[in-house]
């Protein structure tokens, strides 16, 4: 155990953790939206994220920025990232929608018990995972490093890079956008109504199927955006990339209170930070252990997560 290391590098571990946590949070939104409305854990969401990471590399390679290509100027990089966000968002959102149509809707129409949904979810996840595995020959796929981390400023001895700032800020912006959409718009109100009471929502004239499609697309788009941030940060992806990120994001969602959007943000950031502290104290190989121990401890004391409750109920 190395508490001295933690003390000396506290701020820099915090910044690294927040960056990682921002990506967890974006992916966690997909779990939380679907759970909030359908009380269903969409295990295929991890693969929705994975598909985004590949579409990003395909778009970049298609534009002449394959492995080893040198990065264009600042505006070029921003343009490439923006394009990737659109493409990966569309691909991941589309994948999520297909999963809903193929794996869940038919069961919903037959009023299947929730265990059946879970099996269908795992099946959809394995199918996507193996499909991409087969297409890519199970080889990882590289990409150019578009953003060279450059220290922008130092805070309590921790260097903060442009990459970290970019990732955290874009994740926060997307979360804020989604939060406004859910809480302030008519359609968002429809989503909350279905989450709180599907029958009464129908009595208000809300089309439940449309709301369900909407949340799958929204969650998928957020995962797509997260996949671009992940690619920019890590620079390599593979067909199994979704597994660990998916579990971490799901953990983040549960930690913050599954079904609660702001809980996903809190849970994601907290998980990212704490696992980095854990890695600092116990060594990198203990990172995931620390993350899941924290989950268990929090759930022991707060079974509904830190912010608790579901999509509509918790306004704050």
């Amino acid at each position, binding site marked *: 155990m190395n508490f001295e290391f933690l003390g000396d590098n506290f701020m820099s571990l915090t910044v690294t953790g927040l960056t990682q946590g921002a990506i967890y949070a974006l992916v966690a939104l997909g779990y939380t939206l679907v759970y909030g409305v359908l009380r269903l854990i969409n295990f295929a969401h991890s693969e929705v994220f994975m598909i985004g990471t590949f579409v990003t590399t395909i778009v970049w390679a298609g534009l002449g920025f394959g492995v080893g290509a040198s990065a264009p100027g600042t505006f070029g990089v921003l343009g490439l990232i923006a394009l990737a966000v659109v493409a990966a968002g569309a691909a991941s959102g589309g994948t999520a929608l297909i999963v809903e149509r193929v794996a869940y809707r038919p069961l919903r129409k037959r009023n299947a018990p929730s265990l059946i949904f879970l099996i269908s979810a795992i099946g959809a996840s394995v199918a996507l995972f193996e499909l991409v595995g087969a297409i890519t020959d199970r080889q990882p796929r590289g990409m150019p490093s578009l953003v060279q981390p450059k220290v922008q400023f130092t805070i309590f001895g921790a260097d903060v890079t442009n990459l970290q700032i970019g990732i955290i800020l874009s994740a926060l912006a997307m979360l804020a956008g989604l939060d406004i959409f859910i809480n302030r718009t*008519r359609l968002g*109100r*429809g989503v*909350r*109504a279905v989450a*709180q*009471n599907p*029958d*009464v*929502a*129908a*009595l*208000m*004239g*809300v*089309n*439940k199927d449309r709301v369900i499609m909407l949340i799958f697309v929204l969650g998928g788009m957020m995962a797509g955006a997260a996949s671009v941030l992940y690619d920019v940060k890590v620079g390599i992806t593979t067909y199994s990339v979704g597994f660990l990120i998916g579990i971490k994001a799901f953990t983040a969602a549960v930690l913050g209170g599954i079904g609660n959007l702001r809980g996903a943000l809190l849970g994601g950031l907290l998980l990212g930070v704490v696992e980095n502290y854990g890695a600092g104290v116990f060594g990198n190989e203990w990172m995931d252990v620390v993350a899941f121990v924290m989950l268990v401890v929090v759930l022991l004391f707060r079974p509904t997560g830190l912010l608790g*409750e*579901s999509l*509509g*109920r*918790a*306004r704050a």
Partner: protein
Amino acid sequence: MLLELDNVTVSYGRIEALHGISLTVGEGEIVALIGANGAGKSTTMRAISGLRPVGQGKIHFDGQDITKMRADLRVIRGVSQSPEGRGIFPGMTVRENLEMGAYTRRVRAEVDEDLQRAFDLFPRLKEREKQAGGTLSGGEQQMLAVGRALMSRPKLLLLDEPSMGLAPMLIQQIFDIIVEINQQGTTVLLVEQNAQQALSRAHRAYVLETGRIVKEGSGNDLLTDPAVKDAYLGVA
């Protein structure tokens, strides 16, 4: 006829809850559906709104067969319901609950007008405008449920047990408002256990027993009917 149920059956699994109900509601009427617990009153309401599938029979609304129509589309056609147990969205404010009632409407100015009307009918809701629906008292929730159901500007307003759990004075008040809403031009079908109030306010009424309609007549006729008196009005 605005609403016409023709021999409608509804089942929960293998158990048939409604064994062929026929009833009509004419434009401008207040029609009451009375009966004991489990007689099928709420099931009838759910079938009319499209929350329960109809087995046999037909439902016509405003000259159109709506038997198989999706629930949300019936709202657009003009059917609105204040459901059993009120169905307030607990995490939404009073105002948001009312706005949910206007979910199918697009013209903002008209919605604002109707919000004002709801607040005029129920001044209490105006005071509680920013409060979460789940924190309201039972009476306030009932007002909110009725006010919300009006926000879609329905042709037909379905009220499931509007007096449930309310103090006697509030019951009077809520029925006064139902009559007022009706006089403003909305047709009302209401389900009630409080037969005394329902029959004295309704133009016509049906008596439901274990999934069958056993009696119908004007509110006043049923009020003085010995069998009805015996079963539903208690000993005076």
